[in-house]
């Protein structure tokens, strides 16, 4: 455990190990998303109630999963950075935030598009959509706070604290929004209701979720590696690397 943490301290080590892992995740992401898309769009049966419009689930649900997971990973990275002062963790957190915000937006947008055939309107104050909207604001707050500091070290620490505060609040927000929604008893049904799904429907969904996660890992590895080069550009190992490339 300690040996691992000490290795993580070295951006150089992460840069090297990232280079080895990255291709694997890119291939996995491309394959899974391709298989999931084709299966989900062409072969999975249509929903008896919603017809073909339900197929947006194959984008909506994976992006919603990812949006929440990325916030949690961001907070974990923040904790690792604050406790062990591992800079790579902060670089990863900084790179995750825009991706998380984008995923939240994708899930909101796909939810709105889905709302047109199901509810006949672009927006409904559905519990899940509302929670997602609040999550988007939380992401924007973290990104804005990081951008507001002139000192990068302070920005990193402030963003880490805010991500940790946010992650403690996410379940509270989620439960209170669910409670608020049931209290006001709207006449519509939730789009991703807990109806048992046949295997032909959820198998491609599972593949899509795995594909999205692989994509997230691959992209974060790639972006963290370039961030390492940017932040460590004055260090000798990066200069040596640049000399080799030339």
């Amino acid at each position: 455990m300690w040996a691992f943490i000490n290795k993580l301290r070295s951006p150089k080590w992460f840069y090297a190990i990232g280079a080895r892992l990255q291709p694997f995740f890119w291939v996995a992401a491309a394959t899974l998303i391709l298989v999931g898309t084709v299966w989900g769009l062409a072969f999975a049966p249509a929903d008896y109630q919603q017809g073909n419009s339900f197929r947006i689930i194959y984008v909506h649900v994976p992006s919603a999963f990812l949006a929440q997971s990325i916030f949690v990973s961001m907070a974990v990275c923040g904790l690792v950075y604050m406790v062990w002062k591992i800079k790579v963790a902060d670089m990863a957190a900084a790179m995750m935030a825009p991706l998380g915000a984008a995923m939240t937006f994708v899930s909101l947008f796909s939810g709105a598009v889905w709302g047109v055939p199901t509810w006949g309107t672009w927006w409904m104050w559905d519990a899940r959509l509302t929670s997602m909207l609040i999550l988007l604001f939380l992401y924007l707050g973290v990104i804005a706070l990081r951008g507001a500091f002139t000192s990068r070290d302070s920005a990193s620490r402030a963003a880490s604290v805010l991500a940790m505060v946010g992650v403690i609040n996410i379940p509270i927000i989620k439960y209170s929004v669910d409670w608020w929604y049931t209290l006001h008893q709207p006449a519509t049904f939730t789009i991703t209701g807990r109806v048992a799904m046949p295997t032909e429907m959820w198998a491609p969904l599972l593949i899509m979720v795995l594909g999205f996660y692989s994509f997230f890992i691959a992209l974060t590895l790639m972006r963290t590696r370039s961030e390492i080069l940017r932040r460590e550009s004055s260090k000798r190992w990066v200069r040596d690397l640049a000399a080799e490339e030339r």
Partner: protein
Amino acid sequence: MPGTNAPSPATESRTPVEATGEPGAGLAVALWATLKRDLVLLMRRRSEVLNPLVFFALVITLFPIGISPDPELLATIAPGLLWVAALLAALLSLDSLFRGDYDDGSLEQLLLTPQPLSMLALAKVAVHWLLTGLPLALMAPVLGIMLSLPAGSYLTLAVSLALGTASLSLIGAIGAALTVGLSRGGVLLSLLVLPLYIPVLIFGAGAVQAAILGDGVAAHLAILGALLALALMLAPWAMAASLRISING
């Protein structure tokens, strides 16, 4: 005053000694002095105390003008309006919570006392609540009358606001501590803090709704109390960490 600034013989002979006194008593003395100091400071600048209250009344005035003076309509939306307006009014004064101490260097001194920073920051938040949250809660019933809030919910309105604004002050203080080192932290502070306010808003406005409908309000108030307990446990730690970050920005 030339000539008066040489050290007097009495102080000259005094050698530096270690600070004495048991730690518990020291903390109580420091907390009490901080409470007193901040109360005196705010009472000397009374407009800072009054501004959120005027803002609260003003926002409430805007709604009948913007929507409709129909008492029935106003009565249905009154609980939400009162809560949202009070929440925004409480937010308004948050930016100045640590700003003065940051600007004049008192915050550095607060960091370097032998007393825990989280407790001293908590004392400052307590003053903020006493002079913002509590007056807002006491004032809300009057504005409730203006919005034709149904009878029987006035006490719940005041109690839910008193409980809820305490949580709001604590959560907001984390945001204020994070942004105190930034020259234009005001808008950013709202962006950071408002999403975290949502659970308090839901249960606060919910309590007033329940009182109107004649349901039991105990559950809502209990949840508000639970949120406050959670905020009391976690916020001081986050505030202290944030202040340490800001002071070195």
